[in-house]
């Protein structure tokens, strides 16, 4: 069991903010950490890694990592960390990157095989593609057989195809090693595919905590589907109004009654949902 109860003052883009997190994570769990930028996700991850100071308590499988203000240095925590920008050692080959962490060639070869990198083991990082570099980074993070694997938006710099491949790799490695994993991610499909639990952080506090289904599926009652979007424009067309809404990368039009129009303002967050056939805005 991992127990986290921490407190830290942050100077975010929206002024001062307190990061206050209290939660428990079961061994072997795959937890996704979601929330807007500036909500404290990366800081929370860095506190867990010991890279940033905080006060409170972190206890990992019976070992105190943080006790009041006394913190165990990152060197002694036995964690794996995957950075968004890979952060590979540029002066070492793929193999050397792995062996620098732990002189265990059997494990290194096994990891490279699982991620189909064996052929590239003598290459230098800057000769690899982004996806390949991130796979190396993932392997490197697992070389210590870490107690916890922390990933900070590991796939956000990659294109969609490469993301899918890497998600598969992450899943394979998670099944193989059973490492307790905490991953920062914004991509609902990615979270759904990989994680079993989702935490949503807002302004330094956890506002949602549940299974992926509970947190990510937004349909309620008789609604068949619901999308969250941003209201871009309302166009008058004869007696009716057409609302233009951005849902992710998609722009859609929804018919709105004239007496409903005054309830909406341009730029607000709206839910587009449908019951049987008629879409409605709420």
């Amino acid at each position, binding site marked *: 069991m991992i127990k986290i109860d921490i407190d830290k003052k942050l100077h975010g883009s929206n002024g001062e903010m307190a990061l206050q997190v209290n939660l428990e994570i079961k061994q072997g769990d795959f937890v996704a950490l979601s929330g807007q930028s500036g909500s404290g996700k990366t800081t929370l991850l860095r506190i867990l890694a010991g890279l940033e100071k905080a006060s409170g308590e972190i206890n990992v499988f019976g070992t105190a990592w943080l006790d009041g203000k006394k913190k165990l240095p990152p060197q002694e925590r036995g964690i794996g960390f995957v950075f968004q920008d890979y*952060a590979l050692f540029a002066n070492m080959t793929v193999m050397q990157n792995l062996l620098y962490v732990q002189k265990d060639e059997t494990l290194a070869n096994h990891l490279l095989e699982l991620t189909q990198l064996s052929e590239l083991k003598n290459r230098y990082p800057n*000769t690899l593609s982004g996806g390949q570099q991130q796979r190396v980074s993932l392997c490197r993070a697992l070389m210590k057989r870490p107690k916890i694997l922390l990933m900070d938006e590991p796939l956000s710099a990659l294109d969609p195809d490469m993301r899918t491949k890497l998600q598969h790799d992450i899943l394979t490695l998670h099944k193989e090693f059973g490492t307790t994993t905490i991953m920062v991610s914004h991509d609902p499909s990615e979270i759904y595919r990989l994680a079993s639990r989702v935490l949503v952080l807002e302004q330094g506090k956890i506002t949602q905590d549940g299974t992926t289904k509970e947190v990510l599926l937004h349909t309620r009652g008789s609604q068949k589907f619901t999308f969250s979007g941003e209201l871009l424009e309302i166009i008058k067309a004869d007696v009716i109004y057409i609302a233009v809404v951005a849902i992710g990368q998609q722009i859609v039009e929804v018919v709105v009654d004239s007496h409903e129009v005054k309830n909406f303002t341009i730029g607000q967050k709206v839910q587009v949902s449908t019951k049987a056939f008629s879409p409605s805005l709420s």
Partner: protein
Amino acid sequence: MNELNFEPFFLSFRLAATVTFILFLIALPLGWWLSQTKNRFKPMIEAVVSLPIVLPPSVLGFYILYALSYNSPFGSFMNEYFGIKMVFNFTGLVIASCFYSFPFMVQPLQGGFESLNKNMLEASYIAGKGKIKTLLHVALPNIKPALLTALIITFAHTVGEFGVVLMVGGSIPGETKVASVAIYEYVEVMDYKSAHIYSAIMVALSFLVLLGVYMFNQHQNRRLRVI
């Protein structure tokens, strides 16, 4: 005109090599520390380190001359207890040059370390490696251009110094008469031919050294560039 004597050049290079070696050992930990620390005294230390760039060599030379002479507590202490004289000899030149060239070693190293991807260093800490191992195995190999710049510029700057050397060392042949001082003396006695030859050698050597540095850096930057 006397037979051309190359001793001043050998002396200059011996001095520069000694100073570069000593300064590397001092500046490596200091540059690393300055690049990593958030200590509030950091600007103060940086300012002190950079002073020799701004100060006239005569000011620096004067203070060093005073500090190393028998008149100062330090100079008399070293002389009385260790029998080490530090002015108007090679030892004095080395000490003075170390002060004079210090910023040229510290600044490129510090800049190189500061430009490193912080996540890369943190990845090393997370891998269980301490600061020293990270410095030697990750940080230093990834700042090769800055490292080479620091070494060469320190070396070249020491070869090229004149004012401090003249004040602390004087012009004793084979002991403190380095190339720059020798040229000054040739001009003073109006032996322009020797001055020309010495100066031309200095220009050619300096150019070749700098050309080598920039060629190496271009090559390295290409190799280490992240796609």
